[in-house]
């Protein structure tokens, strides 16, 4: 009875916190940010700076911030150091770690809640281990954030002054929120074993919710600074800011980036903890340890892929909004110099899908019942590889004159049509559907359905996939090749919706069909080949590299502008580097990040290791 009351009270606490978070988020437009704006008006100091991006007062006393007009002399140099590359690498490293530490608490919260619901201790232990990995990463995130701030102040002082004059309130509250984030994270982690059972567990889960709420607000604020540089708002055409903080935050690209980063962070975080589980699996010597880390790796992969499936749609939305904001930026993005990086992106995304599917197929070995489905794997592989090939087929090729003549033009006779977006949209939707099918088959592998309507259910599922794929092809081929550009772009939306409907409907049918299913035999966790673990490593590296490349593109499309059309970049580095150079910088960043991540993994390994130093310490009572 007491436990029931404590559970009700705990739920009430969680609901109250949740309500507070929702109300705060909904009221953000009018409430806190309006207060920020007011604060900006009150605190602006007319004598705070010069005309180089500092706050000034106009005749009426209202605060204004004037954008700086920079010359090469305004960028301090340190001998032997390239400021741009330093800022590039440090910002990217900070972002990777930030993405990781923001994502991990999201799925830790979900796993902890599942553990509470099912009362299965294994979920709680796994959630605890996930958050343990993110603790060291959290320190590295903060250190890199500090290093980034110093680098910006050192190498881009005028730009930083301009941005911090506009975002002074949000930057100040960001720093304060960091305290809240740290405090919540440490209580959440260090209090894990203390806050167990009944009401205490609810308090712990509530802390997890708070941690996620604070983390998400931190991300939203930082996103506003980044997107302001791409789509400035709250300023006039000359870049003069008059104090509307919410307008500057709520700029055109803010929400598309928020959505894209939120989903991508979860996928990325899942892949990194998947690599951690793989690392632990490969170094485990006992069968129980292998079983535990195999399960952890599977869960991490499930999280990564669940977020990866909607990610192309969020990316497409972001790209469409960039194009809607500025055609020039949109064309530079996918039709200009950065187009070839999108081919690399396509290869990496295809690699992610292949690696994730390969991991699932290897994992079917855990089940005695998988033998019934093994024969279908080759067909799944053929379709996914074919979709992958279409997905990364370039539209135009880099050719010599001789090659151009031999080809009869810049486009290949058969492959050329596969280089345009309708073909790629069709391919990626098919790739996503077949990955979902892999999951479905994996899930079924160890079960025997007992529902009386199982044959009809199977037939309905085949019909669902078949009609969905036909519809995707109809939209892709008919609207993609026999209509105009408006129709081509418009048809991509029902394509996406078709994919989502097929995934949701097939999951619902499958869940109902297998609701009272029997298990073939207990799943043999740990019975998975080591090569499956390398697929998890591949996922983590591919995600990291992909984020680095796409982050460079997102930033690079500003070209010679620090803040588009407002603050011109007049530094000696104000040029778009060659693709090879950019790819090398990103690759160096990826290697640095992976080295630091290995350090984090190693630390978690050593923290559980004890050395018995016989004879070193004085004997007790001596």
């Amino acid at each position: 009875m007491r436990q029931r009351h404590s559970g009700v009270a705990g739920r009430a606490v969680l609901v109250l916190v949740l309500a507070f978070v929702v109300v705060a988020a909904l009221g953000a437009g009018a409430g806190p940010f309006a207060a920020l704006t007011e604060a900006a008006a009150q605190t602006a100091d007319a004598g705070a700076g010069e005309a180089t991006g500092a706050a000034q007062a106009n005749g009426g006393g209202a605060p204004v911030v004037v954008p700086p007009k920079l010359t090469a002399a305004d960028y301090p140099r340190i001998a032997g150091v390239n400021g741009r590359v330093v800022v590039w690498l440090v910002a990217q490293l900070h972002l990777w770690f930030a993405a990781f530490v923001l994502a991990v608490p999201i799925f830790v919260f979900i796993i902890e809640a599942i553990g509470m619901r099912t009362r299965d201790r294994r979920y709680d232990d796994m959630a605890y281990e996930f958050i343990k990995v993110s603790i060291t990463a959290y320190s590295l995130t903060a250190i890199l954030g500090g290093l980034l701030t110093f680098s910006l102040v050192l190498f881009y002082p005028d730009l930083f002054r301009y941005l911090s004059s506009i975002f002074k309130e949000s930057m100040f509250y960001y720093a304060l929120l960091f305290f809240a984030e740290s405090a919540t994270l440490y209580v959440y982690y260090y209090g894990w074993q203390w806050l167990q059972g009944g009401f205490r567990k609810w308090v712990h889960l509530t802390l997890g919710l708070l941690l996620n709420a604070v983390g998400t607000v931190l991300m939203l604020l930082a996103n506003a600074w980044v997107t302001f540089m791409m789509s400035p708002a709250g300023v006039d055409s000359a870049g003069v800011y008059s104090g509307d903080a919410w307008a500057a935050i709520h700029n055109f690209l803010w929400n598309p980036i928020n959505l894209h980063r939120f989903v991508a962070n979860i996928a990325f975080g899942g892949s990194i903890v998947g690599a951690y589980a793989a690392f632990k699996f490969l170094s485990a010597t006992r069968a129980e340890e292998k079983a535990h880390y195999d399960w952890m790796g599977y869960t991490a992969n499930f999280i990564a892929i669940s977020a990866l499936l909607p990610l192309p749609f969020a990316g497409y939305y972001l790209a469409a909004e960039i194009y809607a904001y500025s055609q020039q930026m949109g064309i530079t993005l996918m039709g200009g110099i950065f187009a070839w990086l999108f081919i690399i992106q396509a290869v990496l995304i295809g690699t992610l899908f292949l690696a994730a599917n390969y991991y699932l197929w290897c994992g079917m070995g855990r089940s005695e019942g998988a033998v019934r489905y093994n024969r279908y794997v080759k067909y799944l592989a053929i379709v996914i590889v074919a979709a992958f090939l279409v997905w990364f087929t370039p539209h135009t090729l880099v050719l010599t004159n001789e090659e151009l003549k031999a080809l009869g033009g810049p486009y290949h006779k058969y492959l050329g049509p596969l280089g345009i977006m309708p073909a790629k949209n069709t391919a990626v939707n098919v790739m996503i559907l077949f990955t979902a099918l892999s999951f479905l088959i994996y899930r079924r592998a160890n079960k025997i359905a007992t529902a009386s309507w199982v044959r009809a259910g199977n037939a309905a599922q085949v019909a669902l996939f078949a009609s969905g794929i036909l519809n995707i092809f109809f939209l892709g081929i008919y609207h993609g090749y026999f209509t105009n550009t408006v129709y081509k772009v418009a048809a991509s939306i029902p394509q996406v919706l078709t994919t989502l409907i097929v995934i949701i409907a097939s999951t619902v049918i499958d869940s109902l069909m297998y609701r009272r299913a029997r298990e073939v035999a207990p799943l043999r966790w740990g019975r998975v080949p080591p090569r499956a673990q390398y697929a998890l490593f591949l996922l983590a590296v591919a995600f990291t590299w992909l984020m680095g490349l796409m982050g460079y593109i997102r930033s690079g499309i500003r070209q010679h502008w620090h803040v588009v059309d407002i603050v011109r970049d007049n530094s000696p580095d104000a040029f778009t580097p060659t693709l090879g150079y950019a790819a090398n910088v990103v690759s160096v960043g990826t290697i640095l990040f992976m080295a630091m991540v290995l350090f984090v993994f190693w630390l978690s390994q050593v923290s559980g290791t004890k050395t018995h130093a016989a004879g070193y310490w004085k004997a007790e009572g001596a």
Partner: protein
Amino acid sequence: MKDYVIPFVAAFVAFGVLFLALDFAVMRLQGLTLIFQQ
């Protein structure tokens, strides 16, 4: 065989109609038609 074929055909027709209706509605919402018109 009948256990599979009939539900398959019924579901295929139902889902097919659903997807076409979806295409029609989404294109219509964007001010376009399902079949291309100049």
